[in-house]
């Protein structure tokens, strides 16, 4: 696999929002395909008191924010699902993308 191919795959992962952009060029790639409409506006995240209280509480907590997810999928159950349980929003997004692709042909 060439360096160019690896860059292609990274760009594709950026476009679909699977990874977090780390350079200005990557932010531009991400923003081309991920718009404000993709995620509902969360007014609480613009409330300074809420953000500081919640953020500082989480920062000092010994509990990881990922803990609930891992305890929900303890043991081998994570590997056993084999992609059968796709979240509805991703399913819808895939369907929209497919429809768009068909219309573009």
């Amino acid at each position, binding site marked *: 696999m060439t360096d160019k191919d690896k860059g292609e795959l990274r760009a594709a992962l950026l476009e679909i929002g*699977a990874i977090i952009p780390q*350079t*200005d060029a990557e932010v531009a790639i991400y923003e081309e395909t991920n718009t404000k409409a993709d995620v509902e*506006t969360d007014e609480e*995240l613009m409330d300074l008191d809420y953000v500081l209280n919640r953020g500082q509480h989480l920062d000092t907590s010994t509990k990881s924010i*990922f803990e609930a997810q891992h305890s929900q999928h*303890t043991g081998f159950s994570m590997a056993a699902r084999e992609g059968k349980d796709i979240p509805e929003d991703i399913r819808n997004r895939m369907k929209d993308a497919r429809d768009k692709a068909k219309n573009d042909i």
Partner: protein
Amino acid sequence: MEATNRRDFEDEADDMIMLYIAEGDSKQKEVAAQVFLGRYSQYLHRLATSWCRYRYHPDNTARDMVCLTLAKVITEKAGMYDESKGSVKTWLGRILKNVIADEYRKLRDKSPTIVHFDDLDESTEAPPVIDEEEVDVKNVNRVLLEEALSTLSEIERSVLIDYWDLKGMDNLEGRLSAGETRVIAEQYGLTLPNLRQKANRALKKVKKHIEDHQ
């Protein structure tokens, strides 16, 4: 340090907003922080939400990731922003990634064996060598890529994305370090060779799906 009301701050450039947050008086700090949230909290929320969805974390985890990141900026990091190194969005993306790494470390420290694989070759033998030259991802069709990722188990998908996230950065910016790769490996309870093996196997499945449906 002259701005005193919200309207003054709305007109300020990002680097000045960061300066006010870091070094302003208490009123300036507060108003500048509010302007900062107005400009960037939703962007960060979008990043975190899509990141979580590809890893099956619930949306409230994304909110917590955002609160952690924003609080760190406002209370600790605002004075470190350097416009010459990139935009605020780029800088926030880097802080968000560090937040994710820190939270995985907490998880690992608390329950070091919490994540397992049932199909790993954890034998003493070296894992089979995967020939990366066989995997051609030129002109990746994004629709097919999303479909292909959806055929993987959630653990395969996470490993593939996280591993290739670092791998791609290696080529783009030379940032990949053994330390970073080790964090990803430990996050999944894997050895480094097995991380690479798992990621490459998942990549081959993705490639096959794309080839079969093109």
